[in-house]
């Protein structure tokens, strides 16, 4: 599989179909995978593919604006690209998607704890509920030889089970637990930096005219930032889980993202990153949208 | 000035003092009032309620009698008679079947040649209030009166043509000429119940009671009238009003002629104040219009 990938990269570079290929290489720890940019056939040997290839590489695409690029992409990464394409941030013709059939990636945080042996660690949460190991769009597909069933063992289950459990808690419980979570936020904005959807030239959190919410780390400011982030991802988040992974204080950001994802799916039948010509969820409407909450 | 005088039934009975005082005033001012010989009742309300032709024929009969006196103007003091005479006269000025019927009833032609005047009209408009003012000897200073015209004196305008229908001023102005004060009040032309004095006494008590109350409320010390029916309802029934509505009215109801006569210096004795149920003399004494020796 890895060889197949490397060959494809060499071919693309050789035929000048792309100026570079973005993919993963092995980190110096010998276990983790880190992003790399392959600009020549010779370098293609650095490319790797395994369950350690956790990162969503789409974020790098914006650094190569208007250049033809190849990118190694899992199913979830491709959905992010679809959103970016629909939002005019990426030209489909500018990117050659090397689609990777994926059986799930490791839970990086747990992997760190459990000794990093890479072979016997559990998949990340996001993969447990992922039903599609084949990307929605690709220019070439590199197939997985492993058994597929293993990847989506939980996929039949209610995807939003955990969200529902959280919803069911009492108001004061919810209030208390989220306050505890947000209290810890250090406003490092790692969640934003790592998110493939956060491409604003200047984030609202950094704006001064007006100051949308307190920039200082206090419960009000932290709460606002997290709500603002969630709302800005509403109908766009494809649940790549990068924010939660990147969060240094371990705020369960995916819970928030998935709550919105669930509501949008249930109330409006909308899913992000499915079609390149989809209208942005919050920039369109249906006359029959529910309004029972309005007096 | 010579007039045929039609007193009417009331002035020969319940309102003798009206008759007497009117004659005194006429005498004092040199107005000659020659009573129509053998005059008959004008028929009053019951006539026009019962028989229309009769209600015309009776007054016209009187006018014919006046015509025979070679008087061209008839003067009356009673507002009701005045109204009936005027109505009949106006009626006879038109020509039609009905008029022929009247002539047939009376056996004489009549075309409304005789004019009908109320004594008030003669006093204010013919003699003239300015002239009258020069003849006032005793000004009625300090006397606050409510002038009460009743319904028939000024209604209907095209019949009587005397004064404003809703806000008449003739008596008020006359009172001021005499030096009395005429209070402003809204009941100048309200109905006192008039002809129901006997039949619907209760109604008369209520209507007259309302009028008395209003006059009292507006500060009047006496009510001045120009109609014998109004006078009798307000005066004779006053005691009953007091009894029925638990009031304490002691409101003299005085004919305007009585006050004019007083002002012209006519002796009080000649004016029949003693005939009033509510004696006006204490009030007039209090205002020093008459004196106790009298």
């Amino acid at each position, binding site marked *: 599989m890895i060889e197949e990938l490397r060959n494809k990269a060499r071919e693309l570079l050789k035929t000048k179909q792309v100026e570079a290929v973005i993919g993963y290489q092995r980190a110096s720890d010998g276990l983790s995978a880190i992003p790399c940019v392959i600009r020549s056939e010779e370098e293609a040997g650095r490319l790797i593919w395994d369950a350690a290839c956790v990162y969503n590489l789409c974020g790098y695409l914006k650094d190569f604006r208007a250049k033809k690029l190849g990118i190694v992409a899992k199913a979830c990464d491709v959905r992010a690209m679809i959103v970016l394409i629909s939002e*005019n941030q990426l030209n489909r013709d500018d990117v050659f998607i090397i689609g990777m059939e994926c059986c799930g990636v490791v839970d990086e945080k747990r992997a760190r704890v459990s000794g990093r042996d890479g072979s016997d660690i559990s998949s990340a949460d996001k993969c447990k509920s992922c039903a599609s190991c084949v990307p929605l769009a690709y220019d070439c597909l590199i197939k997985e030889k492993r058994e597929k069933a293993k990847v989506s063992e939980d996929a039949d289950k209610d995807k939003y089970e955990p969200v529902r459990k959280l919803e069911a808690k009492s108001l004061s419980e919810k209030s208390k637990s989220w306050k505890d979570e947000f209290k810890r936020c250090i406003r490092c904005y790692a969640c934003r930096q790592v998110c493939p959807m956060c491409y*604003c*030239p*200047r984030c*609202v959190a950094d704006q001064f*005219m*007006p100051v949308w919410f307190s920039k200082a780390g206090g419960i009000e400011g932290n709460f606002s930032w997290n709500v603002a982030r969630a709302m800005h991802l509403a109908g766009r988040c494809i649940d790549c889980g990068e924010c939660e992974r990147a969060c240094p204080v371990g705020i369960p950001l995916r819970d928030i993202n998935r709550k919105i994802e669930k509501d949008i799916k249930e109330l409006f039948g909308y899913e992000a990153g499915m079609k390149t010509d989809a*209208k942005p969820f919050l*920039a*369109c409407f249906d006359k029959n949208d529910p309004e029972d909450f309005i007096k | 000035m010579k007039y045929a005088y039609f007193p009417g039934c009331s002035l020969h009975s319940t309102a003798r003092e009206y008759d007497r005082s009117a004659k005194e005033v006429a005498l004092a001012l040199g107005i000659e009032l020659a009573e129509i010989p053998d005059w008959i009742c004008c028929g009053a309300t019951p006539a026009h309620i019962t028989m229309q032709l009769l209600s015309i024929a009776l007054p016209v009969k009187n006018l014919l009698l006046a015509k025979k006196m070679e008087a061209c103007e008839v003067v009356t003091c009673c507002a009701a008679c005045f109204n009936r005479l005027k109505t009949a006269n106006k009626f006879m000025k038109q020509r039609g079947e009905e008029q022929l019927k009247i002539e047939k009833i009376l056996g004489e032609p009549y075309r409304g040649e005789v004019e009908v005047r109320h004594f008030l009209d003669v006093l204010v408009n013919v003699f003239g209030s300015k002239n009258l003012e020069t003849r006032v000897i005793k000004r009625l200073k300090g006397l606050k009166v409510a002038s009460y015209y009743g319904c028939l004196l000024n209604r209907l305008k095209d019949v009587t043509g005397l004064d404003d229908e809703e806000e008449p001023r003739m008596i008020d102005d006359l009172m001021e000429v005499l030096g009395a004060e005429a209070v402003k009040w809204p009941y100048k032309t309200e109905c006192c119940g008039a002809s129901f004095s006997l039949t619907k006494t209760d109604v008369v008590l209520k209507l007259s009671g309302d009028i008395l109350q209003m006059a009292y409320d507006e500060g009047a010390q006496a009510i001045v009238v120009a109609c014998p029916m109004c006078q009798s309802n307000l005066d004779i029934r006053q005691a009953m009003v007091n009894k029925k509505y638990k009031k304490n009215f002691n409101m003299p109801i005085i004919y305007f002629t009585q006050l004019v006569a007083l002002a012209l210096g006519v002796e009080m004795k000649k004016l029949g104040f003693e005939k009033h149920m509510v004696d006006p003399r204490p009030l007039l004494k209090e205002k020093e219009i008459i004196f106790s020796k009298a």
Partner: protein
Amino acid sequence: MKIGVFICHCGTNISATVDVEKVAQVTSKLAKVHFSTTYLYMCSNPGQELIKKAIKEKGLDRIVVCSCSPSLHEKTFRKCAEEAGINPYLVEIANIREHCSWVHRDKKEATLKAIDIVRLAVAKVSRDKPLVKTYVPIEKRVLIIGGGISGIQSAIDIAFAKYPVTIVERESSIGGRMARFDKTFPTLDCAACILTPKMVTVSQSQYVTIYTCSEIEEVSGHVGDFKVKIRKRARSVDINKCTGCGACYAKCPVKVSAKFDMNLGLRKAIYVPFPQAVPNVPVIDRQNCLWFSAKNASGGTKKACGLCKKICNFGAIDYDMQDEIIEEKFGAIIVATGFTQFDHSVYGEYGYGKYKDVVTGLHFERMASSSGPTGGKIIRPSDGKEARDVVFIQCVGSRDEQKGVPYCSRICCMYTAKHALLLKEHNKDAQAYVFYIDIRAAGKNYEEFVKKVQDEYGAIYLRGRVSRIFEKGGKIIVRGADTLSGAQIEIKADLVVLATGLIARPETVKLAQMLHIPYDQNRLFTEAHPKLAPVETVTSGIFLTGACQSPKDIPDSVATASAASVKALGLLLQDKLEKEPLIAKVDRNLCSGCRACVVACPFNAIDMKEIEDRALKCKRDVAEVVEGVCTGCGNCTVVCRMSAIDIEGFSNRQIMEEIEAL
């Protein structure tokens, strides 16, 4: 920054519940507030002079006026500020009347709230920016929707000013309801005699285009530049070739009941609705035409009629004619869609519309018309016999909250009086009985007319509604009351004429949504202001006339038609259209080009534009607002995550400042 705060007493409207002096005293201490004062009537001339004087003497550079709703005097005070040399958009209104003094009683609470309201306005004004009005070009043509008397009058007025005007009429002839009337109150001149000349005038004017059998399909754009799609339904007769000779409908073998005559008479399948029709061109009723029914029934194999085509010497009959969509641009639109009659079949007590001899006023008009289906005889539709005892019932559907509409239809009293008169004129022996609740004859010579009908024509007016109507022995038994005498009344009538109310046409809602104009709970179009802007709508460039706005008689319809024309002409006479600068603006540095605003704009007022980004050294797309099209709704500002697009006058900074001041 020197902010001036001006607090109006509004007589005692504000000062009775708000301690204005205290408001002045407290607000004068707010940051940036330089001056604060009160006055009895700020909107009066002396009030405005006071503001101007304060601006000059105290050197104020923005002002807050604390008074009534901005919908009333915002413009006044903006102009006032402008005259004193301040940009008019540096003015804010604190609404302490409608939102405070008039809705609270406790003086202490109201005063505190008023202070808060003023604080909000001060916060907002501190973030106001000077703005300059923009201008857009105007398409110098007017569209009139509806060809009744209102539409015709508007067209005549506009054509008189030599501006092109287009009438779109749904029926095959213009003329509308008035064409169906016999005589008109109170002067009793015949409707056709006064309408026909007007119809001819518009049809002959070089400035007027008439689209009959046509409807509005789509409206986009905005004042000065409306883009309208008009559907011309297939008439099956070529309007240019037809001479109106009438040979076709003389020959046509099909007879169906005529809708124009309220189904009291018959017409052909090819027909002109009435002899004076404009254009005098027949139309084929495809539902009833033998040619079309044969074609539809057997796929064209069966032998079809085709008589009219054969007889026509001018080749004007065109069975293959298709609907046509015309797209045109207009600077202004006048809506003159008129009304429809209330359907009395909801009244079970009046026979659910089943009794043939219970008809509506419009039936009566057609019967009374000498060119109508009965030749001017007032008959019983059931047996054709002349009607003698005719009962008229007013307020059918009107003033009935249960089954009808709550409002008074305004013209029924008059047309019923007219009917009672016409009845007597058509038949000396007839007797009219009119059941009414009130007689509303508030027009020139109207009351006199009604009295004439009562005095001279012996119409018996009975004050009360009719409770029940039923048929018995060939008569219509009417049971009503006369509340004046306290009696129940029963009348055995030959004919009952219901004065059915005027209601909005069913398609008004669709049209309103197309035109973006509001309508009320009765689906009547809403004027911009019931008193001061009676023919305008809140959407600039769209005007109302006639009964589509509220029930109106002919004089009122004509008056509003001329009023609407003047408004439209006033617009067209401008070189360019002044536009409020309260529109969206893009900060290109912040724009990521995500296109959300483009998608979300209800008016397609945002385009994408490629710019050269020097910092990134590449080309990129950014949003750009089409100023003439933007209405300033602000929807784009919310879908923009980076707040690169903002609304002048309601900017993010202004609103956030207000929230801060809460």
